[in-house]
């Protein structure tokens, strides 16, 4: 029966190709626009690491100015990043399964080919746990071990794009790379990896691509490099003299992530942090009330409001756009259906029930919806590519399986919205009138 309905619907669509094309085009346009902005919103609001997002925690402690809160508008919040000394202090804990402080630096890379000029690259300074904690995929080799953090040993991990650029691709493990005035050995090459949003450092852009190079954190002392991200300080920055003084200062510039797998671990770690702060209070630091915060990945992203307001606004507008397209179809479908009232009259007279007639027409509308939806998804991919090109930091928007499903879902809903009333009207027609007229 269903196959028959689809066949009939196809026949009906073929009878008036221009009108059918118009119907399909309207749905395609609406689906293209709405799916594109649904995808944009989804990328911003998605879970970047679903396998363990509720076991990874962002650590905050309130080391800020005793006289005033970190953020005047939200005085209950501790600073969003951490000082170097506190990061060092809490990294001493053996409670977390994995843990890493991290920041982004801008360093000079000397390509192995002598004729290429040196260039600056964003380098993530982090600890060995960064890779297993964030389940970073490797193409060749792997991360470094915890021993290399202490040295620090001159090892780096590079991403696939950097590997192509510097070494022409291939297994570059063991190759030598000069960064600033030091030689580093490549320990691993990443497979393409783009968590979106880029949750681990929201301050340098949640929609940014991850850094191309990763290096043991402690090279911060050797290169005496400050963060290329965000740094805030409440004491007088001009009075910080020398790099060691900077590291010991109250400047907050480090992101701190830990993995806590069990509830016991979590409780133990909370106790550890509290004890750490109380200890620091004895030393005259942490003048503000005890205010430690552990937020999991989704909690942290929500706190940081990584979904741009524009994305939400565009989503609302694009869904309304689809609605207008669907409303447009109502009129066209009504005309189309009513024009074949005589045919329906014959079918009804031959015993087709109202329900059958109704369903037949709904199937036709949904067929239009699905065809339009498929075309719309293609269009939507183009729209997203266009948006990616328009955005300078290479946008990351693309359709994935859930979004394709959502696009088809939207087209079915649009087909239903457009078809419900016309199909209801046509099935209510009294058959006799149309028979008489013939």
């Amino acid at each position: 029966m269903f196959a028959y309905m689809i066949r009939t619907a196809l026949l009906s669509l073929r009878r008036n190709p221009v009108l059918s094309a118009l119907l399909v085009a309207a749905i395609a346009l609406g689906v293209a626009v709405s799916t594109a902005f649904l995808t944009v919103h989804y990328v911003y609001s998605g879970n970047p690491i679903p396998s363990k997002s509720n076991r990874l925690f962002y650590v905050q402690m309130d080391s800020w100015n005793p006289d005033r809160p970190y953020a005047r508008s939200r005085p209950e919040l501790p600073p969003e990043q951490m000082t170097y000394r506190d990061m060092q202090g809490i990294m001493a804990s053996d409670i977390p399964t994995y843990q890493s402080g991290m920041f982004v630096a801008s360093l000079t890379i000397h390509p192995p080919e002598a004729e290429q000029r040196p260039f600056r690259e964003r380098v993530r300074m982090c600890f060995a746990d960064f890779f297993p904690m964030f389940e970073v995929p490797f193409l060749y080799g792997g991360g470094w071990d915890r021993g290399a953090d202490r040295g620090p040993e001159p090892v780096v991990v590079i991403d696939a794009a950097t590997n192509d650029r510097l070494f022409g691709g291939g297994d570059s493990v063991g190759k030598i790379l000069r960064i600033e005035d030091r030689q580093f050995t490549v320990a691993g090459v990443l497979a393409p990896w783009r968590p979106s949003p880029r949750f681990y450092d929201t301050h340098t852009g949640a929609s940014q691509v991850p850094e191309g190079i990763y290096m043991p954190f402690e090279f911060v002392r050797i290169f005496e490099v400050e963060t290329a991200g965000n740094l805030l300080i409440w004491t007088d920055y001009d009075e910080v003299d020398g790099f060691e003084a900077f590291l010991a200062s109250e400047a907050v510039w480090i992101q701190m992530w830990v993995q806590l797998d069990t509830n016991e671990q979590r409780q133990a770690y909370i106790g550890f942090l509290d004890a750490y702060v109380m200890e620091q209070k004895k030393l005259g630091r942490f003048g503000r009330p005890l205010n430690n915060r552990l937020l999991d990945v989704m909690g942290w992203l929500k706190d940081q409001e990584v979904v741009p307001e524009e994305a939400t606004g565009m989503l609302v507008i694009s869904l309304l756009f689809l609605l207008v397209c669907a409303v447009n179809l109502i009129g066209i479908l009504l005309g189309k259906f009513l024009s074949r009232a005589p045919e329906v009259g014959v079918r009804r007279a031959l015993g087709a029930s109202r329900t059958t007639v109704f369903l037949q027409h709904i199937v036709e509308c949904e067929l239009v919806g699905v065809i339009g939806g498929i075309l719309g998804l293609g269009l939507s991919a183009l729209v997203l590519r266009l948006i990616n090109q328009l955005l300078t930091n290479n946008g990351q928007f693309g359709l994935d399986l859930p979004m394709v499903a959502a696009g088809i879902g939207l087209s079915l809903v649009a087909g239903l919205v457009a078809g419900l009333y016309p199909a209801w009207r046509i099935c209510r027609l009294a058959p006799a009138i149309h028979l008489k007229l013939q």
Partner: protein
Amino acid sequence: MELGPIFRALMHNPTRFWLITVEVALTLAIVVNCVAIILEQRELLTRPSGLDEPNLVVVTTQPFAGDFADENFLDTVREEDLRYLRAISGVRTACAMDYLPLAGGGSLTGLSAPDDESDGHPAPYFVVGLAALETLGVELVAGRDHIEADLRPGEGEPENLIVTQALADRLYPDGDALGKTVVDPDTREVFGHIIGIIREMHNAWPRSSIAGLAMLRPGPVSNERELRYMVRTEPGALDAVFNQLEPTVLAVNADRIVTVRPIEEYKRRYFDDEIVLVKVLTVLAALLIGVTSLGIIGLTSFSVTQRTREIGTRRALGATRSAVLRYFVIEIWVITGIGLALGALLTYSLNYALTHLADAPAISWPLIVGGIALLWVIGLISALAPAFRATLVPPVVTTRSV
């Protein structure tokens, strides 16, 4: 008039009436809200920054040799760089600067007047070398520019600061900021003296509500050994000068990475999202008007086809062609009019939702009036072609059976 019959005919077959009404109402709501957002963003993008934007280009050099750790060496290179940059034909002047206006990254401190007990005012600042005012193209309205002696104040001496009028007015609301002292709001220690006031200059965050607050601190400029210069070219000479900048500074010292980029490029990157948003919304609003217009054409055509006999009867009974045309024109006026009235309500509802969800701008009534006028005209134009077709219906159709 024919309003009575038109209305009764509409109510007799209300589907078309409702469809157009709903469509027009939705379209008005969406288009007006889109335009409101577009206008707000454009206002942000185009408001004057006080800078000579079209003629400013930035040269950033990042050394990779150890020599630059030595401050004297750094000073020498900076002076040489500036000397050669200023000597390029087509360059008006250049200055050293630590961060960039309009680019989204910079420094900020708190300041207040000595007797002001509040938490202080945000003072985004740039550390600049000599000739900054002429380079940036900002206008000095009171006081003086920095001189050589300002660059290295003696031990314990306060800095000589130049602030924008907006910042001066915040610090000293009575308008007597020139020559006054400003202090750190926490420690109450003297930060500096205001020696000059400039009319207008945007800081590093032109999108923010404090875009107009800016301060120029004199100093030997370097940011972790990085040297950065703002270069102002003669009007229109930027393209000609552009390619000479990198070789010029590399000739002074080649052990560094040089980036040359017009300030407008930094601004474009900073306003990336806004620019894309404006483009997308413009296309969307245009598409939507197109779709609605097609919808009205379709529905009116359908209605004309359905009412062929009725039109013929009227013609047979003596109605002129223009009367038939008038009938359809007035009808579409009435329908879109009602739709737009509903649409005005819907526009405000959508705006309410968007201001809460997405911090969209509140819409003003001229915008709604404009939107109503636009859609009314578009509705009319869309209905004209089918209405003309109606006038061509010959009276003789009445005499034919189906």
